[in-house]
């Protein structure tokens, strides 16, 4: 399943990027270049070939790990992305980790104490959380924690200290939305008959939640975690820009501004692959938690 989707994704992205107005050869050589040399470069780079041929060539190169060279720096795209990828990985995974760590317990407690003060406050925060744009939250956190209090650096990547603000910024929206899902699926699950069966055989309240309800409630929560990861990757573009974090997101924005097509293409493809891999992991997790799905695989 992964391979046809990836083929589709690369083609789609390749096609969209090819719509970029302006001539690539002119961008590479600059405005001062002669008509002659531009024509020559065009021929050399294959810009005159039909789109599908260009795509074929790109894919052939991609399989060998070659994503082309940057128009603006002349460096290998794969090299640049390889260098930046760990940073984005660090940021997004810290964020999803924070989000899961906070949201699941809050969601569960909220559901078990429905309409309590804890639940009501939690849900208000969650609602506000999904309504705040990450770039604005980031700026606000910078104002509070680095400019006023001076606890964390406002930009750059320099040890754990510098990771905290961007990771939290990125985590807020996901935390909020996973909390909401966990709560509502938990509320759904505790109404099921099998929860009554568990109670009727004397399982303690704590264990009814932990052993019987949670695993079932996690099934929808995991779907949302997978989807949230996609949103996190998108959010990384903004968060990295706000915090000058040297990741792929920022690289992509800079490349767009420089009209560095191969670099933009490379970035989007890497994002899409990362998202697809996460979705694959989610599917495997599903099967692990839900025996009904496992049965379908066998």
């Amino acid at each position: 399943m992964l391979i046809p989707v990836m083929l589709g994704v690369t083609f789609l992205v390749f096609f969209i990027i090819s719509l970029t107005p302006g001539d690539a050869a002119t961008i590479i050589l600059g405005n001062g270049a002669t008509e002659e040399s531009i024509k020559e470069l065009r021929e050399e780079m294959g810009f005159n070939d039909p789109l599908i041929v260009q795509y074929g060539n790109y894919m052939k190169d991609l399989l060998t790990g070659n994503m082309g060279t940057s128009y603006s720096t002349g460096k290998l795209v794969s090299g640049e992305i390889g260098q930046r990828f760990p940073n984005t990985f660090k940021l997004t995974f810290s964020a999803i980790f924070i989000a899961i760590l906070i949201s699941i317990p809050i969601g569960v407690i909220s559901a078990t104490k429905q309409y309590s003060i804890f639940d009501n406050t939690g849900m208000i925060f969650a609602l506000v959380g999904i309504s705040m744009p990450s770039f604005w939250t980031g700026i606000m956190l910078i104002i509070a924690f680095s400019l006023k209090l001076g606890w964390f650096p406002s930009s750059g990547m320099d040890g754990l200290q510098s990771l905290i603000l961007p990771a939290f910024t990125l985590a807020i929206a996901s935390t909020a939305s996973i909390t909401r899902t966990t709560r509502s699926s938990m509320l759904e699950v505790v109404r099921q008959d099998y929860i009554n069966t568990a109670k009727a055989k004397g399982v303690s309240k704590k264990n009814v939640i932990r052993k019987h309800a949670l695993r079932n409630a996690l099934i929808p929560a995991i779907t949302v975690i997978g989807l949230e990861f996609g949103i996190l990757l998108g959010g990384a573009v903004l968060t990295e820009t706000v915090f000058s974090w040297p990741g792929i997101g920022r690289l992509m924005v800079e490349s767009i501004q420089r009209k560095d097509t191969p670099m933009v293409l490379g970035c989007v493809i890497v994002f899409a692959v990362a998202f697809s891999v996460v979705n694959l992991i989610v599917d495997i997790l599903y099967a692990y938690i839900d025996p009904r799905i496992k049965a379908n695989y066998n």
Partner: protein
Amino acid sequence: MILNNSILNVEDLVIRYVTEDGIVEAVNGVNIKIEKGKTLGLVGETGAGKTTTALSILKLIPDPPGEVVKGNITLSDIDIMKADENKMEEIRGEVVSMIFQDPMTALNPVITVGDQISEAIYIHQNVSKKEATEKAKEMLEMVGIPGNRLGEYPHQFSGGMKQRVVIAIALSCSPKLLIADEPTTALDVTIQAQVLELMRELKKKFQMSMLMITHDLGVVVEVCDDVAIMYAGRIIEQGTLEDIFRSTKHPYTEGLFNSIPSIDDRKAKLKPIRGLMSDPYDLPKGCAFCDRCDYQMEICKTMKPEKVHFSDTHFVECHLYNKNKDFKLNNGGK
């Protein structure tokens, strides 16, 4: 009254649900007594309050919206009303356990049936996990499922098998009282016959008492010793099988009998009870059955009927017998 011979004694139980649309008096002064080793059938239609009564014995009424207003429940000499949550956890599964209506949803889909059975054993009996699993295997075999299916998940079992697993869970700690809430309603007839057979067998083997909730008077004949007919939150007639089937007293009970298509007498005409059950948000001042009753009198509209006893075992709540205990219904009993 010999108290120590009864396993369950419910007195004057009142339970209501407080919802946005108003208050529903789900259980309205119910008295139930079950003696050791006996099976009481609690019969009634949807909304009569049967399940609510049963859940209150386990103290599992969802609160909110449910609320036990008053009443006493004594289960095997334990005062349920005074028992705290810890005490209740000890009681559930050990002294009393419950089988729910729909076997499709009564089992946790993500836990193996073995673990679901052994869990109760591990909680209540002083055994190791391994011993509990061993015992679970025995239980599974006892309900007619090969022991090697212990590690399978509920979705791998058919409906009837699932209900067997549910029974195995309920009986795993040999409870003194088993509450079965419509245990065969969701099953096909031939499967129902299998499960009822199994329940009869196990009841004898475990020497336990049972509260059988059902809407089917046919099922009652097969497993029960005594019958309580419930309507709009009250028990309106109670007696032994003989009492209820041979000398039916309450017009509602009579109506129930007349509504059942008989398999042995094709010519018998169905005489349904007319109308619908009263709005539970707004029960009438007098007898709740009054609007649907063919024997309706003036007094029925304004006054709740008192209990009239015919014998130690048989009573009815109906104004028809206030003056004349020998009053005969048109078509009493079968």
